[in-house]
């Protein structure tokens, strides 16, 4: 049975930008006040949870997704406001400043878009984005998302589990890993520059990719992904640092050997293949013990596997310091 849910975030005219900004200002100023009191009392814990419901804004053109179900997997925490999720991004093909992807990703063309699935599988094939959207019922999962840089957000992602999609292409017995590739087109990405070796590549062990938490996102907040968030399809791997959740995927390949991954090629001592969120393993240059949730004043402790212990069995017997 398919339960048709309306996106839970109706955009009331009164809640578009100005009021969002107003809330944002009130929030930060209020937190500053609270923070000062907290520090003065030298018993400061965390600042209060962000007040004011998050509001999606603008983009009235793309119709909302029909969502089959909605699962909160972020412990009832309020999602980070849409404005922040879509204007504070790492997508280096569109510039290295957090604000640049929102500014420059408009040149990305997401239609037509074809995903190629190849390698060690019995049913390789190509699938267009609009067919992909109809392949499985869309569901929403609210996940925590932790960047390797030490900030984090809570996002309602819309899409479906990665495993069943991969299974359709019938990986064979030689398939041990899955490699993912982002589109690279200098014409659409004039701000890419030479910071990283393009195209952006990522990879997972097959059992990681088949884990029920591994998610393929096609939208967020009940609407198609904005370009800067990795339109038209991206991975969402909530227990790994954000750079593993590769954006704007054009190619998936089943492989026998561990695939090369972009950040690992670029700085092997700083970014490993696994990149599991782990407060016990610091980045060589900064600590991973704490993180700043966007919207909060102070840092909070980072949780092992970003608070998703259900993935721990994937790594039993693996030294997480060596395989960081």
């Amino acid at each position, binding site marked *: 049975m398919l339960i048709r849910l309306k996106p839970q975030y109706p955009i009331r005219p009164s809640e578009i930008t100005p009021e969002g900004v107003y809330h944002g200002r009130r929030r930060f*100023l209020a937190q500053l006040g609270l923070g000062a009191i907290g520090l003065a009392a030298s018993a400061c814990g965390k600042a209060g949870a962000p007040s004011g419901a998050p509001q999606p804004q603008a983009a009235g053109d793309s119709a909302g997704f029909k969502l089959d179900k909605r699962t909160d997997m972020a412990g009832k925490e309020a999602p980070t406001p849409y404005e*922040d999720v879509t204007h504070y991004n790492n997508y280096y093909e569109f510039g*290295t400043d957090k604000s640049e992807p929102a500014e420059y990703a408009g040149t990305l063309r997401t239609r037509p878009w074809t995903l190629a699935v190849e390698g060690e599988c019995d049913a390789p094939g190509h699938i267009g984005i609009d067919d992909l959207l109809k392949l499985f019922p869309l569901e929403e999962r609210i996940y925590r998302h932790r960047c390797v840089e030490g900030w984090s957000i809570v996002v309602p992602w819309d899409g479906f589990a990665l495993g069943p999609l991969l299974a359709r292409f019938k990986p064979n017995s030689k398939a041990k890993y899955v490699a993912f590739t982002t589109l690279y087109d200098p014409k659409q990405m004039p701000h890419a520059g030479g910071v990283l070796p393009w195209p952006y590549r990522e990879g997972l062990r097959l059992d990681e990719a088949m884990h029920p938490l591994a998610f393929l996102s096609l939208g967020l907040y009940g609407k198609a992904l904005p370009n800067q968030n990795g339109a038209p399809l991206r991975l969402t791997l909530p227990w790994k640092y954000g750079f593993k959740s590769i954006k704007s995927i054009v190619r998936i390949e089943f492989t026998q050997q561990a695939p090369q991954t972009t950040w690992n090629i*670029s700085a092997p001592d700083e970014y490993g293949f696994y990149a599991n969120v782990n407060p016990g393993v610091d980045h060589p240059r900064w600590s991973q013990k704490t993180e*700043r949730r966007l919207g909060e004043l102070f840092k909070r402790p980072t949780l092992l596997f970003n608070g998703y212990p259900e993935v721990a069995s994937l790594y039993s017997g693996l030294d997480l310091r060596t395989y960081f």
Partner: protein
Amino acid sequence: MRPIRFTLWLKLAAWALCLYPAAALAWRTYSGHLGANPVETLEHGSGSTALRILLATLAMTPLRQLTGRPEPIQLRRTLGLFACVYMCVHFAMYLVFDLELSLPKLGEDLVKRTYITLGFSCWLLLLPLALTSTDGWQRRLKRRWKSLHRLIYPAALLACGHFIWLVKKDETEPMIYLGVLLVLLGWRLPWRRWARGILGAQTTT
């Protein structure tokens, strides 16, 4: 009469330029335009302003030599002190928002995080310069004042190192600052003496 008024205008302009970044950040804080990560915006804003003013301070001596006018040197102390104020604000932000004033955490960062060690060393070197910047201290320290204030050179290098060590990958911005700094420091090398040495050597052979 005229030269005094010109200096006054220059001083006002320097104050305005130095206060502008603080005013802009204050306004953005009040109006809610600090972006998704307000603490980061404030930390980066204060840090990069400190570095820019520090480089401006170092540009005053070359500017005096180029123009042959005394005004740049009259502005130098003001600029140096503003750089120090921004640095202290920057450090305070980090102490409050990143560490919640925990000294053990500061100790850990100073030992383990190269970029913090570098930034902190820079601050430590510049603090005595700010404290001894008054006419009184200048008189009391006599010639040693000048030697002491040469600490600004290693301090500026440490500040650039701090920036290079903290960026994730794209080092363009810190490298631009480092490039400007190297030009400003290179200017101070005794090129003329060296050139005379070489020319002298050539004429004697």
